């Protein structure tokens, strides 16, 4: 998938919508016997591998699950501390799943507001008057594209560096946002988008009622996959025409 994430940030810098569509990450699950030959340490409420890289388990990977049950930060699903649990020889043999740690929603909120501030700094650093903020941030593994509307809402898309057509994708996301989030009369502006139509993947059987952001997301997927117009038109953004 060429698009990694989509973030929608409101005027105040708060994250109101977030979507991750990473490819399945490299995860490794192995059975271990006592003593564990990996060195684990606690960092940022997570248990990370500090030393002992082997077999697909790399330094920096986090403990994701023990014996098939997902861990909750530094605690197992039962509420015991992971490091204590793994120090006890009675619990072995144990099957541990390691993988790249996922961002928690709090971390995403923080990153979004940090980006909001950087965006403002970007426009202030400019030698020219009236410059826009950060439009693109490039790294070797991804490119971050940002589009700020005239009303101050920012749409941020993280995509593959070689991916083209992200500008039209950002405009399309703006259209979908204006349709499904804003036109919902019970949605308050600047609040997190909880409209199920915006997030839920639904292909309703009635062809005249298409959907949602993820229905829109499929359209967006086609959009940059082939740079062709989507095969299905979003027909529920009804605007009245005077006849």
């Amino acid at each position, binding site marked *: 998938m060429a698009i990694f994430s989509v973030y929608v940030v409101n*005027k*105040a*810098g708060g994250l109101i919508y977030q979507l991750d569509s990473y490819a399945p990450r490299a995860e490794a699950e192995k059975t271990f016997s006592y003593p564990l030959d990996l060195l684990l340490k606690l960092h940022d409420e997570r248990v990370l591998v500090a030393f002992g890289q082997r077999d697909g388990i790399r330094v920096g990977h986090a403990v994701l699950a023990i014996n098939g049950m997902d861990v909750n930060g530094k605690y197992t699903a039962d509420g015991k501390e992971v490091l204590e649990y793994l120090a006890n020889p009675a619990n072995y043999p144990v099957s541990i799943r390691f993988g790249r740690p996922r961002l928690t929603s709090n971390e995403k909120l923080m990153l979004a507001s940090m980006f909001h501030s950087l965006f*403002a700094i970007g426009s202030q650093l400019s030698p020219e008057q009236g410059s826009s903020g950060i439009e693109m941030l490039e790294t070797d593994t991804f490119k971050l594209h940002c589009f700020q*509307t*005239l*009303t*101050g*809402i920012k749409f941020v898309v993280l995509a593959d560096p070689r991916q083209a*057509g992200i500008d*039209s994708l950002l*405009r399309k996301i*703006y*259209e979908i*946002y*204006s*349709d499904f989030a*804003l*036109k919902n009369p019970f949605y*308050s*502006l*600047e609040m997190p988008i909880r409209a199920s139509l915006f997030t839920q993947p639904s292909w309703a059987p009635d062809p005249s009622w298409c959907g949602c952001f993820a229905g829109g997301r499929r359209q967006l997927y086609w*959009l940059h996959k082939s*740079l*062709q*117009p989507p095969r299905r*038109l*979003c*027909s529920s*953004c*009804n*605007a*009245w*025409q*005077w*006849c």
Partner: protein
Amino acid sequence: MSRPAHRRPEYHKINKDLFVLTYGALVAQLCKDYEKDEDVNKYLDKMGYGIGTRLVEDFLARSCVGRCHSYSEITDIIAQVAFKMYLGITPSVICNNSSRNEFSLILDKNPLVEFVEELPAGRSSLCYCNLLCGIIRGALEMVHLAADVTFLQDRLKGDSVTEIGITFLKKLDEKKYRRKK
């Protein structure tokens, strides 16, 4: 195969009478609920404000207008693009007083009052289309411009034309987060 720069979405046609009648029913119900004309006008404006804050995003998403650099440019866009897109009419723009940033939109045809002959007795200061004023005010506020929008003349009240006056007050601070009213 490259995609066109902006693809207009298909608009479904709907009978405009339904919209005009719905608006009429709304105003009639407000007249029943509130005795004073000022109250009805105030609530129409408030409803329009709520609509305007949302409609502006739809407008900006679909019309691809860029950043405007003057108040007259903004009024031109409201008249020629926005009114055309949503109501199918193009009011003409007059600058009343450029030093005080006052502009007027002259509507020669107003679809909303198609079936209204005259205002009822005792409702002589009712602004029937005050929703439009609220919409414009809400939309301008979302793009950080405070404006005062009122009806200067109204055919329903006996004037020759319908005139909406827009007075731009000030630019709102973009960086400070303002709590929504």
